[in-house]
């Protein structure tokens, strides 16, 4: 792993000395390898390694501290910073209606996450309702109804012959009538390059005015994460991301790509198929995971 590779590179330096340039270059090569193997975007990796090299060259070996550890700390800290620093809470205005729209690629975990998020927000004292805005996928409405029932949150639907913008609008009326303040809209999976489908979700945004638009991303996505995040952000001005399937063993470099491209927080992590498998996203834990 990176720790032992660094120990081999820096092992022979004495305290008081500057870390030598050749050792730093070799260490940065190892970092680059580790990042690419962890699915961190190619361009982000290049930028990242440049920053690390700069910081590492300035390091003077501190007495009692092993230079490998110092450089590892630079790498780790740079990565935590790139992932957003510390965990970010979703700040919702108490007493105000929140309209949360979940978007993302096919199969990323939106429908499951919608129910998880609803359950979480209800624990926080809010009154959620789920809206079935996926009129495309077979049995999508039934799926949302089943998971909604499992977490005890009402589900509003209008079948598959009504457009999602109307469903969102009508669902909001129902929410108001039932005094529910947190409306979570599940949408169909879509490719960021599918013009028709991107137009559909833009129409929903323009008429429904979500207070939060969150991109749901599968943690095992590779280099394509950057494309997905970029197109969705350009089209919908995202407010944040939720990373799913973190209970897998993927290193999850997609987290960096997504944060890098949107500049917005990763709020939550999906950590399993149960509706309770939902946690805050922790940049420090993610950094350790990506570094392997």
């Amino acid at each position, binding site marked *: 792993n990176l720790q032992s590779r660094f120990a081999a590179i820096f092992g022979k330096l004495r305290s008081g000395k500057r870390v030598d340039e050749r050792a730093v270059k070799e260490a940065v090569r190892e970092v680059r390898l580790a990042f*690419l193997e962890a699915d961190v975007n190619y361009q982000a990796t290049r930028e990242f390694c440049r920053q690390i090299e700069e910081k590492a060259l300035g390091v003077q070996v501190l007495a009692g501290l092993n230079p490998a550890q110092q450089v590892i700390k630079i790498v780790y800290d740079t990565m935590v910073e790139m992932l957003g620093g510390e965990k970010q809470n979703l700040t919702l205005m108490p007493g105000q209606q929140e309209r949360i729209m979940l978007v993302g*690629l096919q*199969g990323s975990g939106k429908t499951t996450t919608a129910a998880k998020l609803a359950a979480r927000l209800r624990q926080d004292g809010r009154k959620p309702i789920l809206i079935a805005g996926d009129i*495309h996928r077979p*049995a999508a409405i*039934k*799926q949302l109804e089943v998971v909604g029932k499992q977490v005890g949150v009402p589900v509003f639907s209008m079948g598959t012959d009504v457009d999602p913008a109307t469903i969102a609008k009508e669902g909001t009326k129902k929410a108001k009538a039932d005094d529910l303040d947190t409306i979570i809209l599940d949408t169909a999976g879509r490719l960021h390059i599918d013009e028709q489908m991107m137009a559909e979700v833009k129409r929903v945004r323009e008429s429904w005015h979500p207070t939060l638009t969150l991109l749901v991303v599968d943690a095992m996505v*590779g280099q394509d994460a950057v494309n997905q995040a970029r197109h969705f952000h350009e089209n919908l001005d995202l407010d944040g991301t939720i990373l799913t399937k973190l209970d897998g063993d*993927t290193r999850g470099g997609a987290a960096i790509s997504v944060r890098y491209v949107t500049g917005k927080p990763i709020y939550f992590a999906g950590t399993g198929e149960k509706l309770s498998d939902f946690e805050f996203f922790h940049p420090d834990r993610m950094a350790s995971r990506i570094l392997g």
Partner: protein
Amino acid sequence: FQRRGKIDDDLLDELEETLITADIGVETTTRLIDHLRDQVKFQKKKGSTDINWLTDTLQSAIGEMIASENRSLKTGTEKPSVYLVVGVNGVGKTTAIGKLAWRFRSEGQKALIVAADTFRAAAIDQLAIWADRAGCDIVKGEEGVDPSSVVYNAVHAARAGQHDFVIIDTAGRLHNRANLMQELGKMARVIGREFPGAPHETLLVLDASTGQNALQQARQFTDTCGVTGIILTKMDGTAKGGVIIGIHDQLKIPVKFIGLGEKIDDLEPFEPEAFLKALFE
């Protein structure tokens, strides 16, 4: 990189970026670039403007890595041929089965699809809609029952009904969940016990946007139930699916079909030439 004038280190760096960005992975990319570098030296192509020679050399090196004699689906000596469809969550298994059933029907064959995902919300409903669209029969179990019991019933129903193909849908499962992988291993054994020779194919469904974790998925699924082929889905996106090159090179598992969309006819046999060409677009 077609705009660059000549073959030099900068061009090789650019090619490296193209390969890594296509999810080919560091190890495989390094081997390919080293091979190119050797060829450039050997054939004295440094500084040459013959970019086509370079891309042809690269494409043929990749082509060799993914060559296979086993592109078509294996059939049994007696009916039905049984196909087990596996993979992690959300990759497109259920959809692929609907597409396959429709393809068999359009070739005049009778298919039976089996709803052995007894766990996920509305999984059975979803497959039932595909059975309707594909015009094929379906075997369902009760939600929450042991999937192996559904598989058992299906194999027996198939022998009676004279179906040509039986395609079994399973629940998505992460390969690092030991209990879920054990459940899958049990299903495969039940199939083999009730029908020697089956399953004739165990198809791993992979999402084309998956990164390096795909190799680990392929390894674990093949250790558990022996994967004989891959269905690479969502190739209609911007992802290139480069992970299948390393999978083929290291595990010898061929890609048999690709998914190009969400409609019933969006499934095509894997064409290595088209795949290679798309890698560089």
